[in-house]
């Protein structure tokens, strides 16, 4: 199994979810994060004090998938999250040793 972690632009969430559903993934976990990268942020001004806001709002999506699904999932995310503009984000794939569904105790692929 793999844990696919994707950093995306916030307004792409619904599209990514739909794309994942289309490839048969029905569970995921999302966190609000701030991203720093090539995409530049903006400046905020408060009574003469300027603060550069370099960390931009992004969403992190974590999906546990079976090994053979990884490619499809990754491709689905890329195609749904892409705008072609800088800051579209990244996908990171990690090895997932074990998975457990808390409710039933099922493990590994059954747990996803």
């Amino acid at each position: 199994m793999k844990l696919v972690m994707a950093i995306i632009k916030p307004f792409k969430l619904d599209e990514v979810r739909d794309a994942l559903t289309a490839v048969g993934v029905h569970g995921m976990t999302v966190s609000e994060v701030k991203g720093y990268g090539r995409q530049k942020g903006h400046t905020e001004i408060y009574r003469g004090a300027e603060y550069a806001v370099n960390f931009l709002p992004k969403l992190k999506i974590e999906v546990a998938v079976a090994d053979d699904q990884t490619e499809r999932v990754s491709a689905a995310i890329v195609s749904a999250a892409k705008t072609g503009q800088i800051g579209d984000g990244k996908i990171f794939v990690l090895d997932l040793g074990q998975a457990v569904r808390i409710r039933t105790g099922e493990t590994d692929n059954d747990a996803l």
Partner: protein
Amino acid sequence: MTKLASARCRVAGLIASAFAMSATSAFAQAAAAPAKLDGADTAWMISATSLVLMMSIPGLALFYAGMVRKKNVLATMAQTLAAVALGSILWVVIGYSLAFTGEGAVIGTFERILLIGMGMDAIHPLAKTIPESVFMIYQMTFAVITVALVAGSVADRMRFSAFLWFIAGWLLFIYVPIAHWVWGGGFLGSAGVLDFAGGLVVHLNAGIAGLVAAYVLGPRRGYGSENLAPYDLSLAVIGTGLLWVGWLGFNGGSALGASPRAGYAIVATHLAACAGVLSWMALEWWDRGKPSVLGMISGAVAGLGTITPASGFVLPWHGIVIGLVAGAVCYWACTKLKQKLGYDDSLDVFGVHGIGGATGTILAGVFAVAVVGDTAGLLEGNAKQVLLQFYGVVATLIWAGVGTFVLLKVIDFFVALRVRDEDERVGLDVSLHGESLQ
């Protein structure tokens, strides 16, 4: 004047002139013909002015900002602030003069430009017991909240610079004439159209303008697909509370004095708000399964907007009836009509204020009671009054509708009305104002 002093006057009055004792309001009216300051009326009208100002800032600013997404909260507040700041200056420079001087059927005069000639002892013929300065600023608070109301329909997508031009143009070309027609001696008021505190001048006017603006600017990005849920409805609830309280000054102050009519007006006003809450709540509960807080506050504002034109002409308990109707028709307008017509009036300026203002203006003609406001309505046998009220609605609707359309198109030509896509996505707080809620 204290009770002591008034007792003394009373004694003097008794001895000096027995008939004065039996004289009633008819006499008082005749005697009152020469303008004469009254401290009590002045005290109430300054308080009423404060209350109405509080309706805009922070009332309306909160009500609106509480219904937008996090990224647009400050920009929404900025619109109300700008409407108050720029609108007030324009009102003093020229608006008041055009709206409230002279006898023109269509527009006033330039007599009070920059308040010239408004000495400390000046008194306006429409408010003979208070200083004209107080009358002027009281009317000003109406003008600015009306412009600020319009902004709700195009929340989340209008450029701030374009909005400033809109404030200026709309105040002078739409609000000022209509205020003159209805209140300043123009043709609607003279014809006998009733509008106690602004069903036509404020609510229908803003509502129609909002509708037109929603069409001209087009829907928000993601309207109908993305989740556009309000960020922090608690702000909207605070705003509603302040609007509601301030409305006692809005309608009660429209009696222009601390009189029993002001008492009647505030009771009717408050009851309409309450009934609006209950009727919207009941309908939503029945229709959707749950009564939302947004629904309750929408019902309150619907009730308040709807009673506004009628508040000084009807009996207090009529407020309950009018409020119940208000909650129902505005619920229908915001949830059914809007979906059917497909416009994106972000904060339902048309659904609440437009529909409410029109409904209330008609109902004023239905419920008016002669002993309250000297005019009988349909229920007292004066069917003509309802026609007159329709006349007022149609005139306002046409002028506000056409005028707002032309104005927006002109502004769009010179200064684009709408922000760039990217700015809308990032949110107006950052893109227009360079700041954000953390």
